[in-house]
């Protein structure tokens, strides 16, 4: 098969397109704080999110998932690559030029305790988005806050209360209401459920699903929980050490994982049947340091199928099936 080095998906209905996104964090060492090297947190990521769809982004801790999410919102300044939102390249925009786009993209956080200002009432926290958008009329803002609270399934009386009076799941709902306050089209969900109880997780997932159906939202759903991602997402991208290893429509990826890393991930995910030991081998070894990643395929050190050529050149994407892309020679 001919190697085909392309972005991950292409269709006309694109909301967000990320091309070759890179973010290296400099590391300073020693007395004079000399530049000792760079941590390659994100090393060339291509993504595409269609209008009204959900892209799942999975990978283990430290693989750069969150950095991708925050770079897209320009909360972290990317070093290289393009972020094209609705046809406009936003990667070079200044803070001021970003302001109109702030109403388009929002983020939900993992930690429901750190994501709300402890000294601000819920209402004020949600109002901040409306204020920033220039809604001057106080009565209008209050009314909108009540609407938003209802939309996420909270009592409207919650607006006058402080974050510590709520449970984790309720706070997560408030975080969602805050993100919705500016009527965004895209929401980056940065592991929104991994800090919650399983029963609450289900509630939040259903809430996200309902909101998507109601408001036509698009999600970039970052998580390490494969089951949840599989349930929520239309497409799933698997990330390892700053690069995307495999991309496929959700069902295809779960039924027919091709990349050895994806296979290992899926075999490690808990299954409802206790006697099902899984069909793929588990991995040995550790993730190499992003400070000094190996040349060639990032996965070579742990790959059961490693060959000499894996250690030499960077590998592009191969497309063995319709919309199914793999960063591996084998296909």
């Amino acid at each position, binding site marked *: 098969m001919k190697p085909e080095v392309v972005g991950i998906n292409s269709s006309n209905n694109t909301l967000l397109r990320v091309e070759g996104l890179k973010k290296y964090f400099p590391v300073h060492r020693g007395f004079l704080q000399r530049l000792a090297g760079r941590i390659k947190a994100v090393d060339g990521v291509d993504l595409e999110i269609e209008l009204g769809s959900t892209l799942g982004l999975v990978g283990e801790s430290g693989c750069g998932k969150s950095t991708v999410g*925050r770079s897209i*919102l320009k*909360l972290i300044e990317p070093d290289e690559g393009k972020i094209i939102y609705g046809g406009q390249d936003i990667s*070079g*925009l*200044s803070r001021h*030029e*970003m*302001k109109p786009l*702030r*109403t388009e*993209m*929002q*983020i939900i*956080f*993992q*930690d429901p305790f*750190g*994501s*709300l*200002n*402890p*000294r*601000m009432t819920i209402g004020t*926290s949600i109002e*901040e*988005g409306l*204020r*920033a*958008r220039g809604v001057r009329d106080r009565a209008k803002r209050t009314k909108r806050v009540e609407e938003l609270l*209802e939309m996420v*399934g*909270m*009592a409207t*009386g*919650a607006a*006058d*209360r*402080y974050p*510590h*009076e709520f449970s984790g799941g*309720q706070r997560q*709902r408030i*975080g969602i209401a*805050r*993100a919705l*306050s*500016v009527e965004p089209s895209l929401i980056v969900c940065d592991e929104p459920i991994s800090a919650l109880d399983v029963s609450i997780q*289900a*509630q939040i997932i*259903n809430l996200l699903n*309902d909101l998507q159906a109601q408001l036509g939202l698009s999600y970039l759903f970052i998580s390490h929980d494969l089951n949840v991602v599989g*349930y929520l997402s239309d497409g799933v991208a698997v990330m390892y050490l700053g690069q995307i290893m495999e991309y496929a429509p959700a069902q295809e990826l779960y039924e027919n994982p091709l990349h050895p890393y994806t296979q290992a991930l899926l075999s490690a995910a808990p299954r409802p049947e206790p006697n099902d030991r899984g069909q793929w081998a588990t991995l040995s070894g550790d993730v190499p340091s992003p400070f000094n990643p190996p040349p060639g395929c990032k996965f070579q050190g742990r790959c059961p199928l490693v060959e000499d050529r894996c250690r030499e050149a960077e590998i592009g994407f191969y497309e063995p099936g319709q919309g199914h892309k793999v960063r591996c020679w084998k296909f």
Partner: protein
Amino acid sequence: MTTAIEQSMNNEILLDEPLAPKRTRRQEFWSLLRKNRLAIWGLVTFIIFFFVALTGLFLTAGTNPIMDPSMVRLQEKLRPPMARPNMDTLKSVEIPALGIYLFGTDDLGRDVFARMLQGAWVSLTVGFVAVGISVLIGIFMGGIAGYFGERQFRIDHLIVAGLLIIGIGLVIANIYVWGNITFLAGLLWLFDLIVRRKRSNTRRGPTGAGLLQKNALSVDTLIMRFVDIMLCFPSFILILTVIAILPASIYNIMIVIGLTSWMGATRFVRAEFLSLREQDFVTAARALGVGNFRIIFRHMMPNAIAPVLVSATIGIATAILTEAGLSFLGFGVPPPHATWGNILSDGKGFIFDAPWLTFVPGFAILIVVLSFNLFGEGLRDALNPKLREGR
């Protein structure tokens, strides 16, 4: 997976959660403050002192005051508190207004009660204004260092600043031609920098300017090294230097004490900001497009202010005592005027013969500081939403 019906049931359950009737925030603040007995005592004491100081200001001011704090009666010197004046040796104008030396007299026979009244206003205002100035500067500098700390000054920024400062310096030193040329050059360059920054996002200047565009030092480094430099000077000597240049008046002293004691607050605020900056709620505010100023003062400052409030209450005592030290050295409030500080320092030569000269102002300072401290602590707790009970 969950059906739509189950989903809506989940929502119903959440909506049904009982919420107690809600008091307004002010009501809640007062009820919480009232529960803290000590804080209320602190507030009441402080208000009493404030009114005493205010009446003292009227009773002791003017050419012919009701209670004259500078009336010298050498025959009545070092009388203990509650002593009756010896009517035989006093002229009628010299008899104290209360008919009794409430707090005794000092080594010149001046009525300590009248002097305390006169000094109260000065000492209280010195304490509060000086601490107010230092806290304001501290919050501002700490906020900038903590929030914008990672921004870099480039070498050309520094050169521009240098040109401007040297230009102004030369003009002040009466070298007008060179001073103006340097200043104008700096101004032009500054203008150029601003224009270029607005025009494009790319940081590329003309070729060969690469060296000038190198990052030289960060905002955080600049501010915190300046703090370190200020801390290196013994602050009292620094104050003396400035006072020597400026005319001695109460207001100059307040300002100077304020300007030399902001470093602690800066460090507190910066330290808090460094940890707050990484919290998700700040990121969320940035994602919503909230302005930098609003993020600093509305979102982060309320979470960072507690340690500053506590150190400010102690700072008030320090400011009162610093003023006392300055008065003692003759740099403070000019002599006939009494302050708690100079009563204290004048009296320390007689501490065994006339202990009331040190104890009376000492206790007054202690009570003011203590009451403010207790009130400050109560205020801090009452403002903390976690301690409010709203359910």
